[in-house]
């Protein structure tokens, strides 16, 4: 991709036949900043990197590979697939996040993968606010063969979620995926609405929701840190899905998130189709971030 190439080219220019000295490390830090790590996390990564590599003669591919290792070390603990507990009846997943980040699309993708694995997901059109949000989810239902539970426009999403769990039990759905309207984390009333959905769901099953997932748009910069912190505090997030990684943004902010929020990253979105969801792989992600994936294997 464009920014990977830019990053890779930057490292090549800087480091071919060069010692990894202060100036070189500073440029490397700048390259991490352009991948959205943020100045603080970029400085931390470079500090750790300096300890192991300082002063050595290094080639460009070597530097990319070992920088990627450094980043992968930070990400490895949060790379965890979403485990579905089959003893739950049903397993309830609540999808949350700021506007336009990919909640509805990701529900479609998850429904597809669960259906392929032999499960019977039920989709819940909990976004009763945005224009045609219900119809959008209904298209995903048709594409994946999953039924979609809907309520009237501007209906209370909490009541709808409550009814959906009852329906899932009745009709034998083992997974319930609840879509919610996009909301900015700084809007207290909207965050309270999410808490209410959770409270009402718990009247059906006090262990639910079993996963509260936030979709994080890969183009998001440092505001992601505030986003995740607030959603985590308000609705007990259990994990993240990074969307739109097929674009030029590298989502380096997840490195800072792995250090601060330490939430599992379950998957990444790499396109707009049902099949475009991948497990989050720390090494692969780190190699894309540093441009190491552009090097041919030795």
């Amino acid at each position: 991709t464009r920014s990977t190439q830019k990053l890779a080219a930057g490292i090549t220019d800087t480091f071919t036949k060069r010692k990894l000295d202060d100036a070189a490390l500073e440029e490397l830090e700048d390259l991490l900043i352009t991948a959205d790590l943020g100045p603080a996390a970029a400085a931390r990564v470079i500090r750790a990197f300096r300890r192991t590599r300082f002063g050595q003669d290094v080639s460009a591919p070597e530097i990319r590979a070992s920088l990627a290792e450094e980043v992968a070390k930070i990400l490895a603990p949060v790379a965890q697939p979403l485990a579905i507990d089959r003893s739950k009846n049903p397993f309830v997943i609540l999808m949350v996040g700021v506007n336009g980040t990919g909640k509805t699309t990701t529900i479609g993708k998850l429904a597809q993968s669960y259906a392929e694995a032999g499960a019977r997901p039920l989709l819940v059109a909990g976004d009763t606010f945005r224009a045609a949000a219900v119809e959008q989810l209904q298209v995903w239902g048709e594409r994946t063969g999953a039924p979609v539970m809907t309520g009237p426009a501007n209906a209370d999403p909490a009541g709808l979620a409550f009814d959906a769990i009852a329906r899932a039990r009745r009709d034998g759905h083992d997974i319930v995926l609840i879509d919610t309207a996009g909301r900015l984390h700084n809007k207290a009333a909207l965050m309270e609405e999410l808490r209410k959905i959770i409270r009402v769901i718990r009247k059906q099953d006090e262990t639910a929701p079993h996963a509260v997932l936030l979709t994080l748009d890969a183009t998001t910069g440092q505001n992601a840190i505030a986003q995740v912190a607030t959603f985590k505090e308000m609705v007990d997030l259990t994990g993240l899905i990074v969307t739109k990684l097929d674009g030029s943004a590298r989502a380096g902010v997840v490195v800072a998130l792995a250090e601060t929020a330490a939430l599992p990253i379950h998957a990444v979105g790499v396109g707009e189709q049902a099949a475009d969801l991948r497990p989050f792989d720390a090494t692969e992600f780190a190699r894309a971030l540093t441009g190491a994936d552009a090097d041919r294997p030795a």
Partner: protein
Amino acid sequence: MFDALSGKLGDVFDRLRRRGALSESDVIEAMRDIRLALLEADVALPVVRDFIAKVRLQAVGAEVLRAVSPGQQVVKIVNDALVDALGGEGAVPLNLNAASPIPFLMVGLQGSGKTTTSGKIALLLKEKQRKKVLLASLDTQRPAAQLQLAQLAERAGVASLPIVPGETPVQIARRAMETGRREVFDVVILDTAGRLAIDQALMDEVKAIRDVTAPAETLLVVDAMTGQDALATATAFNEAVSITGIVMTRLDGDARGGAALSMRAVTGAPIKLMGMGEKLDALEPFHPERIAGRILGMGDIVSLVEKA
């Protein structure tokens, strides 16, 4: 986060204040922290570098007003340079100087707010300018996208182009302009599917749409939360379709909006409007002063120097 940063900058300027004069080393030291502040506000790194270099030149040797400290003077210099870089004071209006029906083309990444902003602009033109507006969705990609725009049109009380399944975006664009002429609309707003900057096929498609409609405004709709990718996005869209204006959405959030500076710097296009919420009336003229203050986070000091 805002406050921590202001505090941090405050410390630097306190240091400057005690020293009394703006020597070159004072300014360089201050700029190191300004650089950090801008990066934390998501201004793209190359834009930060240019900005710092320019402002450093202006600041060294600058006269200090008697009533304020040198540190406060630096804040004011940095702030003014930011306002300038964001387009100077005041807002640039939408271009309505074209033959009717005037085409507006909305472009941007997936989920940036194009469809909602189309509805908002339609409402604005209808209410404030008494224009007869036609909304047309060229989005054949996203599920229910055309229906979404039709529902927004209904809410805004404006017309929308009837949905004809199976048409390509270019065909819809042609039909929209024909309808606009035949039914005497003042403005036709063409909403397009979200596309990635690196998606050559879809970039070619939007070029084709531009070629058949010759828009008076080609508006790039961007999310205020955008990080360093603002540079790649703005560059790619500008190269493909020559952006005439930028709309920044979700400024009702708490993102500091540094992408505004990046986008403006690489396209030279004015930021015309800001999205302040999900409702159709949540659209405001862009105020460079307000966003500069938000990026820098030192509004108090700026107004203090202004009063001096």
